[in-house]
């Protein structure tokens, strides 16, 4: 625990550590994994310069994974319960063991991890960390000031602030005792003109809301609304387009989520090689792009070991506790790895590369800031962010979605007008080969996927021929 948040005011009747030990103690199955999650969250939401909803919440979840091993393989039962008391633990363990006994063998079966090379960032014995509404005490005052500034200038502010802190305790019958504290915070600020016809958005990811400069964000949004004083209508077409970091993050996060080795091996994703195998080793961009994840990335720290409450196509409960480290997904423009469990790594013959909860793109010699890229643009579009992104065709990973909260026309190195919104149809994989310039990487909040994925650092990029498929009337 980093120390900036208070510990839970009154310890629960049963500490998460004790819950894990108790479950392991009563387990009768061949192997057992127990995960205790303690979460606390606080949020504020506002619209039209006033509060709409708010809240604080706490949750406590105990997940028991019972594994029964036999000559034909391993069977798994997983039971997860909220608010578990000491006397309920034997029943939960028994239920998981019953499920394991009556189910078929699991295809991802492996021996349990017995030691983790990745270090947990907190002491096993410490109380779980917690957040509470006071995390916003200073921020709420600043926000109130921003509301006053916006209202006096005829602008309306909308947005959301959320702070969440989850402490996870993982124990196993093979001796694992790992703990991870994950703070997650985000601020989204949206400014609109009084007639709602102009809109601008900014978002940041923050672990603690300590250095959030609301007035600076509000001033930036006011400038962008000013860019919309002149507007032009443009038709659907393929345009040279500058994607800011948040827009690139949203496209690449979806690509990352689609990079499971199992589906690629099955021949059913954009990363499948016709005739069998995967496209690992194939060049996707002529530029020396690097796309990677790292649990220790400064400002973007994520769990350094696998935490899997259930198996799925891209994760395996058997891998719980497995160490994670820096992983290159794309290196020097070439596909270097797909997300792998130990099971899929065995199938593919590739290294074990579990998914990591952050994503970073950079290049060795960035071309400067987004403003620098604008300055070097003859004629093109500058986007603010993307919205309602959905997969259209897995074969090419064609995605559709909308531009949102500000599309601007760049002429001779300057923003000259706001442009209507568009529906785009683009594949992030195909787009990699049409990125012609890459700026400096900065932390960013993905606008579309911020509910699920907040830890990203991306550059602004210039894309040739970005496919704006139709015009959206939305403003």
């Amino acid at each position: 625990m980093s120390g900036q948040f208070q510990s839970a005011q009154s310890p629960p009747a049963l500490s998460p550590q004790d819950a894990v030990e108790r479950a392991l103690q009563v387990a009768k199955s061949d192997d057992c994994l127990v995960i205790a999650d303690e979460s606390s969250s606080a949020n504020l939401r506002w619209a039209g310069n006033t509060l709409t909803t708010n809240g604080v919440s706490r949750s406590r979840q105990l997940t028991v994974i019972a594994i029964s091993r036999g000559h034909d393989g391993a069977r798994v039962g997983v039971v997860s319960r909220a608010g578990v008391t000491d006397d309920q633990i034997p029943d939960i363990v028994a239920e998981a063991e019953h499920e394991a006994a009556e189910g078929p063998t699991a295809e991802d079966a492996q021996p349990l991890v017995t030691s983790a090379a990745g270090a947990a960032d907190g002491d096993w014995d410490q109380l779980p960390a917690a957040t509470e509404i006071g995390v916003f005490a200073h921020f709420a005052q600043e926000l109130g000031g921003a509301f006053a500034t916006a209202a006096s200038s005829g602008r309306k502010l909308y947005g959301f602030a959320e702070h969440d802190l989850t402490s996870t305790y993982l124990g196993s019958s093979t001796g694992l005792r790992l703990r991870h504290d994950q703070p997650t915070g985000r601020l989204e600020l949206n400014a609109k003109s009084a007639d709602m016809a102009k809109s601008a958005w900014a978002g940041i990811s923050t672990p603690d809301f300590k250095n959030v400069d609301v007035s600076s964000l509000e001033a930036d949004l006011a400038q962008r609304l000013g860019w919309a004083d002149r507007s032009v209508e443009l038709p659907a077409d393929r345009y040279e387009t500058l994607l800011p970091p948040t827009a690139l993050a949203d496209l690449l996060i979806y690509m990352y989520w689609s990079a499971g080795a199992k589906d690629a091996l099955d021949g059913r994703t954009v990363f499948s090689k016709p005739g069998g195998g995967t496209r690992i080793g194939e060049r996707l961009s002529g530029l020396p792009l690097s796309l990677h994840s790292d649990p220790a990335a400064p400002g973007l720290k994520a769990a350094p070991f696998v935490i899997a409450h259930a198996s799925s196509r891209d994760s395996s409960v058997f891998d719980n506790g497995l160490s994670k480290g820096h992983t290159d997904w794309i290196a020097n423009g070439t596909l270097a790895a797909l997300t792998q469990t130990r099971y899929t790594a065995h199938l593919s013959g590739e290294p074990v590369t579990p998914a990591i909860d952050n994503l970073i793109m950079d290049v060795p010699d960035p071309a400067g800031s987004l403003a620098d890229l604008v300055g070097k643009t003859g004629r093109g579009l500058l986007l603010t962010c993307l919205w309602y992104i959905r997969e259209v065709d897995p074969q090419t990973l064609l995605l559709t979605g909308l531009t949102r909260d500000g599309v601007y026309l760049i002429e001779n190195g300057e923003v000259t007008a706001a442009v209507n919104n568009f529906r785009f149809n683009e594949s992030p994989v195909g787009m990699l080969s049409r990125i012609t310039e890459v700026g400096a990487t900065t932390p960013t909040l993905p606008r579309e996927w911020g509910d699920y994925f907040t830890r990203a650092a991306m550059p602004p990029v210039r894309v040739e021929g970005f496919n704006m498929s139709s015009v959206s009337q939305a403003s």
Partner: protein
Amino acid sequence: MDQNQNGNRGPGRIDPEFLAYPLRGLADAALTRAAQLGASHSDFRAERIRGQQIGLSDGNLETVFDSDDLGLAVRVVVDGTWGFASAVDLTPEAAAQAAAEAVDVARVAAAINSEPIELADEPAHGDVTWLSAYEVDPFGISVGEKIELLADWSGRLLAADGVNHVDASLLQVKECKFYTDGATTAAQQRVRLHPSLTAVAVGPDGRFETMRTLAPPAGRGYEYLTGTGWDFNSELAEIPGLLAAKLAAPSVDAGHYDLVIDPSNLFLTIHESIGHATELDRALGYEAAYAGTSFATFDKLGKLQYGSPIMHVTGDRTAEHGLATIGYDDEGVAGQSWDLISGGVLAGYQLDRRMAALKDLGRSNGCAFGDSPSHMPIQRMANVSLQPAVGGPSTQELIGGVTDGIYIVGDKSWSIDMQRYNFQFTGQRFFRIKNGQLAGQLRDVAYQATTTDFWNSMEAVGGPETYVLGGAFNCGKGQPGQVAPVSHGCPSVVMRGIRILNTAQEAGA
């Protein structure tokens, strides 16, 4: 306790484990504490939400996960500002503490609140109980039996020529709620299931296609998987042939076509272009920074020609087996049914008590919902349904009236803009229509339109025999994000002159 007449075909009782908690004592502790601390309004929820997810890959077990979310929530109004807090321990001490935290939240948030909260009046309903319509509790069936059934279904598909992979999944939820605001005290339980199978064919050139079952998620029990409400045996028998034909089908020529849209596809278009567009909180801007607003603004109520005159759309929380169906919402408002679009004209909105009061619309129509005890209720979607034409045509008759078009079946990809104007949808199956007859499948099809253009192009609505209740478990809205289950009934329809894209060309092929 009053047994609500709707849906009282279930096992006849609410989960006794849930009712064994001291729910009234918890509520008393919370509401008393809130009043002591100055709350002018307070309400209390306790919930137990059981879930089970089973997934098979090529007939092998991939995922089995049992979840059980339990907790309580207190919502207050203090000096005109909302406060909300939740707790996981169902003890009087935790309930009182949550009430105190909710009051604290309201006081911190007062710095940014300039709009005093007022709630529309709702009659007191006293002590009421409600259960959804189901016959067999899925949580009473062993996991092994469910896995065996999914494995059998997977095996049938895998045994067919041309099927390379099969994904099978079964989502099950049992939701128990206890709500009280002092005037209404409701104990409720509902059950829902979503079975799904997807077959995958990979061609020798590396091209692949998928085909998913059309069985919608339903507010039913395990009987849904054994012959009540859907014929899985017939559907599974058809899929390999349909999939092979899709893999071999020609790529569509982009252009404008007349469409016959099956309910299995149209329900999602209704959800996105009507359901969300007629939420009053969106129309008034309260979702502007996230889910978005609506082109159907309040000044257009009673005036906007949303669609052709044959368009009649209702909102309800009462349809049997509907996923949004409930006896009383999370503000104690009884379930109702009302018009959203009548004669093609915007006629109403979906409301919670705050939205109803804001616009002096009288009583709320009961759309408040929180997806867990951790989340504050917000206005969520009712079952929003397009009504069939009495004595109207069959799907075959609708196809017979199209000279050059496409018949679209099943949902897949969806996206719509933040004011609900511009949308794009794909589907599972696309059949060419030539001279009133189906003429094989097409692939790479997406349709794209603006909402009012689309619904005003609706020339014909099918009869009641074409009506199907579709839906989804995972409608997202709000921050923090909440998911809600919702159903949409609709008949088959004919749309004239809709833009069709070729998705391979869109990808740059």
